[in-house]
């Protein structure tokens, strides 16, 4: 379903009120937040992989510079597992999963930042700062598998298609309609909330 199709569905649900609901508002305040809420409610809808190149002197990485759509890291694997065929390299431990650790735990070792050797763990500071422990002695590739945010749709690209499976596209229109109805006051606002809750019903199952 394209953005144009989604807008058409919303038009019908909103009673063809194009003056009260301009298209820019439908996209910015309706469709974009709606697809984000769907991905929050059901993270499996949009999982992505990013390949990082980590150099020996690279102590940490700002994940926002790698991919602006990252939300939560699910897994981190040493090596490149972004393709269907990956070659394990035994001596660097490639294709093994890295375990998460915290700064608090690492802080138990006074020299954790200096330690170099086989990389087995990763740490995060806040949602964006990412580092490896131990620091690699050679340039390494690391694959981050993460829950992603859907790319923002723009009213200037009506042929764009949301990045989540097609079966869920009608729910975007329902949630977006519910969000737009909020400005209409008490009764319509509550109707909008009911539309949103109805769309989300059963998604976590």
């Amino acid at each position, binding site marked *: 379903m394209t953005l144009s199709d989604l807008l058409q569905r919303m038009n019908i649900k909103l009673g063809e009120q194009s003056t009260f609901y301009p298209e820019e508002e439908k996209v910015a305040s309706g469709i*974009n937040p709606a697809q984000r809420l769907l991905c*929050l409610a059901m993270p499996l809808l949009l999982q992505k992989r990013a390949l990082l190149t980590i150099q020996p002197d690279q*102590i940490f990485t700002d994940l926002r510079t790698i991919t602006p759509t990252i939300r939560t890291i699910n897994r981190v694997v040493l090596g490149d597992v972004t393709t269907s065929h990956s070659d394990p390299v035994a001596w660097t431990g490639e294709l093994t999963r890295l375990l998460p650790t915290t700064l608090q735990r690492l802080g138990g070792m006074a020299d954790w930042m200096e330690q170099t050797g086989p990389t087995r763990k990763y740490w995060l*500071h*806040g949602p964006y700062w990412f580092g490896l422990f131990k620091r690699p002695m050679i340039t390494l590739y690391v694959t981050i598998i993460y829950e992603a945010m859907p790319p923002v749709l723009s009213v200037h690209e009506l042929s764009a298609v949301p990045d989540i499976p097609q079966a869920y596209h009608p729910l975007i229109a329902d949630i977006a309609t519910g969000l737009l109805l909020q400005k209409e006051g008490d009764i319509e606002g509550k109707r*909008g909330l009911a539309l949103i809750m109805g769309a989300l019903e059963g998604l976590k199952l």
Partner: protein
Amino acid sequence: VTTFAEQATRIANLLQETPSNDTVARYLMQHQDELSRLARSKYFGQITWYQAIQGQALYVLPDNIIEVCHVLYNQKVLRYVTEQTLDYSGNVRSWEANTGEPTYWTLDNQVLNEVRIIPAPMRTGSAVPSPTFLPMYQDMKDNLLVFTYEDVALEVTNVDSVIPTLLDWEDMLVFASVQALALQEYPEQNIPLAQNCAALLKLWMSYAA
């Protein structure tokens, strides 16, 4: 990248107001409050390099620090300690006079946003940038690296400011701002809208937490 102008448009749409200088100023103030609320829950991590100076124990951090959580000197972890602990630890009663290899850090009894390194460093670290020290370009030998959480609300100062959160949180900031604005004692007070936005915020938070 979302600017505050886009957020202000969404807020104005929900409140059914035409954005003017006055209303946008109100939106901005409310939005900063909501960003600060998010920051206080330690959302915005930051890692900052500081040049260590020979004999200097006090280092001034930016005003927007929420919490210092980890301090390294010369890539070695410094332990947090209170002044009372140092006072009662026997053989270091004159600890403020000492210089040496830094072992501890404290915020205890210090001026706001000042961190004290104990003992004060004996050497001044290099401030010469180098492309090999990624991603900071600054030498960590004999210098400080401080892991903090910061409040970015004051960086959002006008309509062109970039909102420094993930997009999910931008949605939540809109609902939180509208909820607070719709409750204000203006003729346009809109309690049903505030209640609905509170419900939306709760819904978003239930999935984001």
